[in-house]
């Protein structure tokens, strides 16, 4: 058994290692080392906990068994999961952090003596407040992430679910959570604790159902942030530095990612959270423009255009992930490179269903990361490129965002694809994208629509090159 002071120092060390783990992600070269620091921090934290409890009886064996069971499940998932399913996986993992926070809070509430928090029915006020906040945020994270997971997995429809009085109802529930915490702290009643948990689960569910599929990057980042705050809440209860530091890191990390995602869509955080986007704007734009002519082509035309180009920029989007076209795309690019054509990739901040989604898929297909560029880095290059190859992206290329102040996406930063000499647009049909608006790019003089499944089309182009 080691002293409380010594274990506090070790918890601090593991907190610092977690900071270094995130710091490593500033570049791909240092990232693997960063991950190693993270693992080391975790090993230190767990070992110190064992040593400080000094309990190596039967209970210890059970702890090891549960770690082993959970660990094998986790390892199995980590090796088996396809890269296209990363958003679902991350949402699923968030729900587990949330639920673990709830369970720890329940355990501490039922047996406060084990945590040095007072006695049942007479828990220290500060601890009780921290505990109930941690439990409530954890519960919200859990049920919210479950809904996000179901939507991403396609088990639940990705379209927003809205009903009358939704926002007032949510507001009432949120206020009732605060009231419940107040009464819980003044009465120490366990019934109120259970009601608090139930209501928190409910609000997590209600908060996420009105948010549509393409807003998932914001939702996932937000839930990431919540899971951090839940961990921090529990960290305060347990007086554990490692947990407090980590909670703060994760909380701010998720908040920054949500901010970046919102900025990428030019929408305020509240606008996204209140939801219902894309469900209402459909009628205004589509009816009058349907008759406009489009040029469509086949793989042969596309191959011809690209063969005669000297530089090509590829714009991938969620459709590429759905069609699993990243490997076929890389093969096409390899063929282009053999013909001395310069190829680069342009990634919009909100392309895909989570931050960095496209980058991971391209990395999986062995695309070197120094050929992949962010919006600001590459946007000026479109004017000098010969061909833009849009595969599975839509709204993020829509020039309407720059020209039409009436448009719901007006002001959103978009890739200046239309400045290219010619645009190849792979899409299954002319249907509007997520925002429910027509893409002006379809009707431009220099656009050639390729109506097909993204993977099949890319393979066909490669054959024709």
């Amino acid at each position, binding site marked *: 058994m080691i002293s409380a002071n010594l274990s506090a120092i070790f*918890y601090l060390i593991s907190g610092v290692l977690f*900071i270094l783990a995130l710091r490593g*992600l500033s570049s*791909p070269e240092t*990232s693997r080392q960063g*991950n190693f620091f*993270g*693992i080391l921090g975790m090993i230190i934290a767990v070992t110190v906990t*064992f040593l400080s409890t000094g309990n190596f*009886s*039967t*209970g210890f064996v*059970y*702890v090891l068994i*549960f*770690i*082993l069971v*959970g660990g094998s499940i*986790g*390892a199995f998932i*980590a090796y088996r*999961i396809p890269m296209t399913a*990363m958003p679902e*996986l*991350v949402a699923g993992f968030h729900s*587990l*952090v949330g*639920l*673990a926070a709830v*369970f*720890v809070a329940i*355990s501490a509430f039922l*047996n406060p*003596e*084990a*945590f040095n928090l007072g006695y049942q029915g007479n828990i220290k006020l500060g601890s009780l407040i921290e505990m109930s906040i941690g439990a409530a945020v954890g519960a919200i994270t859990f049920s919210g992430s479950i809904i996000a997971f179901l939507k991403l997995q396609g088990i639940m429809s990705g379209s927003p679910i809205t009903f009358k009085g939704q926002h007032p109802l949510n507001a009432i529930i949120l206020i009732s959570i605060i009231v419940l915490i107040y009464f819980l702290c003044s009465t120490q009643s366990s019934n109120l604790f259970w009601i608090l948990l139930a209501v928190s689960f409910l609000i997590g569910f209600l908060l996420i159902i009105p948010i549509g599929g393409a807003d998932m990057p914001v939702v996932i980042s937000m839930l990431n942030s919540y899971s951090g705050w839940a*961990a*921090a809440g529990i*960290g*305060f209860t347990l007086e554990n*530095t490692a*947990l*407090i530091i*980590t909670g*703060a*890191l*994760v909380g*701010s990390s998720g908040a*920054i990612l949500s901010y970046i995602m919102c900025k990428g869509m030019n929408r305020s955080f509240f606008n996204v959270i209140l939801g219902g986007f894309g469900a209402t704007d459909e009628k205004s734009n589509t009816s009058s423009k349907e008759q406009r002519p489009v040029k469509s082509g086949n793989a042969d035309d596309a191959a011809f255009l690209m063969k005669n180009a000297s530089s090509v920029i590829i714009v991938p989007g969620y459709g590429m992930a759905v069609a699993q076209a990243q490997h076929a795309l890389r093969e096409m690019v390899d063929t282009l*490179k053999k013909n001395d054509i310069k190829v680069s990739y342009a*990634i919009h*901040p909100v392309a895909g269903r*989570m*931050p*960095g989604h496209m980058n*991971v898929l391209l990395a999986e297909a*062995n695309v*070197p990361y120094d*050929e992949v560029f*962010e919006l600001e880095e590459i946007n000026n290059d479109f004017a000098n490129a010969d061909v833009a190859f849009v595969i599975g992206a839509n709204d993020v290329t829509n020039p309407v965002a720059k020209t039409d102040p009436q448009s719901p996406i007006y002001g959103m930063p978009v890739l200046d694809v239309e400045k290219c000499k010619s645009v190849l647009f792979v899409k299954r049909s002319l249907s509007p994208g997520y925002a429910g608006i027509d893409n002006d790019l379809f009707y431009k003089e220099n656009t050639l629509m390729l109506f097909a499944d993204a993977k099949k089309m890319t393979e066909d182009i490669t054959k024709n090159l």
Partner: protein
Amino acid sequence: MEIDPLIFRLSIFILSIFVGYYVVWSVTPSLHTPLMSVTNAISSVIIVGAIIAGLSGNSGSVFNTSSIFGFLAIALAAINIFGGFLVTQRMLAMYKKKKKDKK
């Protein structure tokens, strides 16, 4: 008058938020997905609390209501720790630079 230890923890918390803020802004956007999976893994350090809860039963009976919740939390957090770090490792291994010999 002595300062409540809570204030010290609050200071650590607030300062860590600032550290997190600056560290996360320096993360390159192409690594945002690994960032999410690794933050997932490290927030499972909540397992520390779960272990204390799991070991809270007395020597006579390992399992009571409180420790059962602890054990469940241990399993959940362990899924996250192993899953999170390993999947991050798997992703990071895929990020490669352009090979010079291949044109």
